[in-house]
């Protein structure tokens, strides 16, 4: 299996602070990888680097073998990498349906002129967009909440909606930033199942940032550990949990984390 995402010596400095230092790892195509580390280890920074929000200081990011560092965020999203956010960034005043419908826009090609003049192409493609949004919501179990304004949804459903929105762009790599934050054990189990299902059904790869050890250990096939912006360990969940450096820096002493 080839790597769909490869980080090579990725480094990001903010002035004098090295947030991410020489980090390298791969996400296998079709795999679910985890990125863990204490708070401030640089995990979200890496997501921001991958998605083009931050500019890379040095090193490279390869997606499907091609470098994407230096590209604009919307281009990267178009190329097939989408994400969810640590603090949910839904389009708050829009309904669940509209959130997803908006993100479907890449599946249509009609121009402004065609929409202003309501030419046939607009009608055709709009219909297809609406159908796509409807089916996505159905797959993700959000159909009966389609009309709810997204900020009124319970927390767990908001997270699920964010994932649904990310799927609307037909990504090949899904980045999930702490998707289980604030969830109880039951919700976390649901989420674990969901991630696996999404990967299978939509044929994509997943990279997850998480603190919930159950989720990481239960769902990820490969884990990369960060500490203070540096790579600490890389391998399967078993390998990583037995790695003395990791045990000392992160897992050690506290045992299993529970929220």
């Amino acid at each position, binding site marked *: 299996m080839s790597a769909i995402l490869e980080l090579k010596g990725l480094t990001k400095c903010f002035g004098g602070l090295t947030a991410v230092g020489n980090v390298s790892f791969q996400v296998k195509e079709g795999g679910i990888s985890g990125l863990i580390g204490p708070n401030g280890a640089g995990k979200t920074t890496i997501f921001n680097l991958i998605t083009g929000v931050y500019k890379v200081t040095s090193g490279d990011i390869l997606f499907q073998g091609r470098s994407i560092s230096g590209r*604009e965020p*919307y281009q990267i999203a178009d190329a097939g990498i989408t994400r969810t956010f640590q603090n949910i960034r839904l389009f708050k005043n829009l309904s669940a349906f509209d959130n997803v419908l*908006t993100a479907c*826009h890449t599946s249509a090609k009609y121009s402004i002129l065609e929409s202003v003049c309501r030419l046939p192409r607009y009608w055709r493609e709009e219909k297809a967009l609406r159908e796509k949004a409807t089916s996505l919501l159905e797959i993700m179990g959000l159909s009966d909440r389609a009309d709810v304004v997204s900020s009124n949804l319970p927390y767990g459903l908001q997270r699920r909606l964010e994932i649904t929105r990310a799927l609307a762009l037909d990504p090949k790599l899904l980045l999930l930033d702490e998707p289980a934050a604030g969830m109880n054990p039951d919700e976390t189990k649901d989420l674990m199942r969901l991630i696996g299902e999404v990967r299978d059904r939509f044929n994509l790869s997943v990279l997850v940032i998480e603190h919930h050890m159950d989720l990481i250990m239960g769902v990820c096939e490969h884990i990369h550990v960060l500490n203070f912006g540096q790579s600490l360990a890389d391998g399967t969940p078993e390998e990583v949990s037995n790695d003395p450096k990791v045990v000392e820096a992160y897992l050690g002493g506290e045992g299993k984390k529970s929220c």
Partner: protein
Amino acid sequence: MEYIAGIAILIGINLIAVLGLSILTGFTGLFSFGHAGFMAIGAYIAAIFTARLHLPFVLAIAAGAAAAGFISWLLGLITLNLKGDYFCIATMGFGEAVRVILNNIPYVGGARGWESLPKLTNAWWVIGLDIVCVIVTWNLINSRHGRNLVAVREEELAAQMSGINVFRQKMIALVISAVFAGIAGALMANYMQYIRPTMFNMVKSTDLTIMVIFGGLGSISGSILGTAILVSLPEVFRNFAQWRLVIYGLAVIVIMVSRPQGLVGGMELTPSGIRKVMSARKAKAALAAETKALEKRGEI
């Protein structure tokens, strides 16, 4: 009767500018305090076409609109990368700069203004262009392009992550809003038959923005309603000339403090718009009921 027709025409003219601004502010979330500057460009270019070059009105309007659009594109290139607050300030500077520049061009009358412009704007022009602009705005908003604009307003970062070229969307909104303002300016010049730079100062820009907010951000029907009310109201207070603006200023404060969502909030006063609000409320109630039921059963 003529008096009312006059007010109706003024409403119609301002509506075009307000619709454009609504696209920029109400739907894309960018505030501009310099849109009177685009109206001025439209007005003056159109005046040159009709009063100096004696070309047909339709060309004058088109030229005014195109000029405003072009200049807005230039402005956008420089300023759209700025954060929201700073963009706002830049538009302010732009509006004032246009006014100051016009003050110093004797060819178009300078600070004293330009009089005796031909009266070419009539009810047909205004109604016709109003209908066109409302349709264009409506069709734009209810399309993937319109949704992208709203996404930029709601969560710029998430919009980027959803494959939306935020800069391009903002530029589209800016240029369209400027074109609309240019059309309005052209109509105004050939209706009032005189134009002066002070007619397009920051107070005018603020007026336009207030009309958008008063009607309700993100609502086309709101903008129509807001414009109709705010343009006709001063006429009602005409007799209290001096106090008119005092009351206006106070009203602005009161509105912002007590009902900033404007008349209609973010909804549209159309059957589909109302239906949307209704179904959202129903869905929310259903959700609340289910949650309560689950809580009662101890599952939450």
